[in-house]
């Protein structure tokens, strides 16, 4: 377990206020895209903050905005030197999403991702057993593999008939 300085702890808690632009109910921490926060000294002797993030999907168009929002949040809280570094490895997985994040997604009407190790299926025409975020029924079916954003699939509940987004496991 890494020991965090007070400043780093403060930064992590500030980042909990930065929402994902496409699923605003989740923070960048809930999503698991902030991988590390490091402190460094600038060439002229000032303290700087480096936030390491990783994209959810390769082509996620929200990444530039997420970087900008993180930077704004820290600048407006008194950090003067902020740099955002994006890394690809290790590759992001929905298993990094926090339990709190999954709960928030469900309350927002999006079915949270199933744990990858248990049910991420690759068979053809296989429907994952996805719980309806509205009535909790598992009696649901997939309408489309791809939804309104790269990270979601379209499902419909056979009980309450409501269509819903599923944050697919990745």
């Amino acid at each position: 377990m890494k020991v965090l300085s007070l400043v780093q702890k403060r930064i992590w808690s500030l980042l909990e206020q930065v929402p994902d632009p496409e699923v605003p109910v989740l923070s960048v921490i809930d999503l698991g895209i902030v991988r590390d926060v490091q402190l460094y000294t600038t060439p002229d002797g000032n303290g700087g903050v480096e936030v390491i993030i990783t994209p959810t999907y390769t082509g996620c168009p929200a990444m530039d905005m997420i970087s900008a929002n993180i930077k704004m949040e820290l600048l407006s809280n008194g950090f003067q030197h902020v740099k955002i570094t994006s890394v690809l490895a290790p590759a992001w997985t929905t298993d990094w999403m926090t339990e709190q994040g999954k709960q928030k997604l469900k309350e927002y009407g999006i079915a949270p991702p199933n744990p990858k190790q248990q049910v991420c299926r690759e068979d053809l025409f296989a429907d994952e057993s996805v719980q309806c975020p509205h009535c909790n029924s598992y009696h649901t079916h997939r309408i489309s593999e791809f939804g309104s954003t790269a990270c979601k699939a379209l499902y419909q509940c056979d009980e309450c008939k409501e269509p819903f987004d599923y944050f697919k496991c990745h």
Partner: protein
Amino acid sequence: MKQHLIDYTIHLADNALILGHRNSEWCGHGPVLEQDIAITNISLDLIGQARNFYQYVALLKDDGSTEDTLAYLRDAHEFKNCLLTEQPNGDWAQTILRQFLFSNYQYLLYEKLQHSKDEQLAAIATKALKEVTYHLRWSSEWVIRLGDGTEESHRRMENAINLLSSFAGELFENTNYEIACANDNIGVDVSSLSKSWMNKVKEIFDKATLAIPGHSKMQTGGKEGKHSKYLTDILADLQTLQRTYPGCEW
């Protein structure tokens, strides 16, 4: 060696950009809303891969190139994509078959590229493989749905097979830069992928009640910069803004 790595990475980028662009032409024209969204999501993934590869090329070249100059300011003969990726969309069956043939190849390629000695190529491949898994499943399901669908959808799949099968061979024909990178454990010897690729085609075509075509003439040259008129058409569309108003942003 550095030039081989640059050429190899450009080849990987160009495949992703050109197929991504082709798929994006469906935006607003898909047969049903959900599939319009699906094919454009696949575009987004592919163009994202292309960006990662081009950014890496820009870093390697270190001559002022950026991902944008690489995509927007090169001429057709400098593109190293396989001919399959530039083929026109045609009908839905042709688009589906092109995606299936390519995703099947890309899946096998990235599976090996994950273990590249080059850390950046390995990282891009590892990440993209997760997305390509979805592309392959989606396009496989559609090949089956159309092949084993109505008389008309079956006929259209057969037509697509006739049009596209001659472009499959190029995927597995190594160029000099691929051989050089494979020898250095940076790249993948693509000829080693053809058997697994064919097995997958057989598996899916069987389910789709489609016949594997007999020996067909093979068209090649794209990876060396020899392209059809179709690539020039794509570039005219893709590059027009940056060529007309250099450096334009919005």
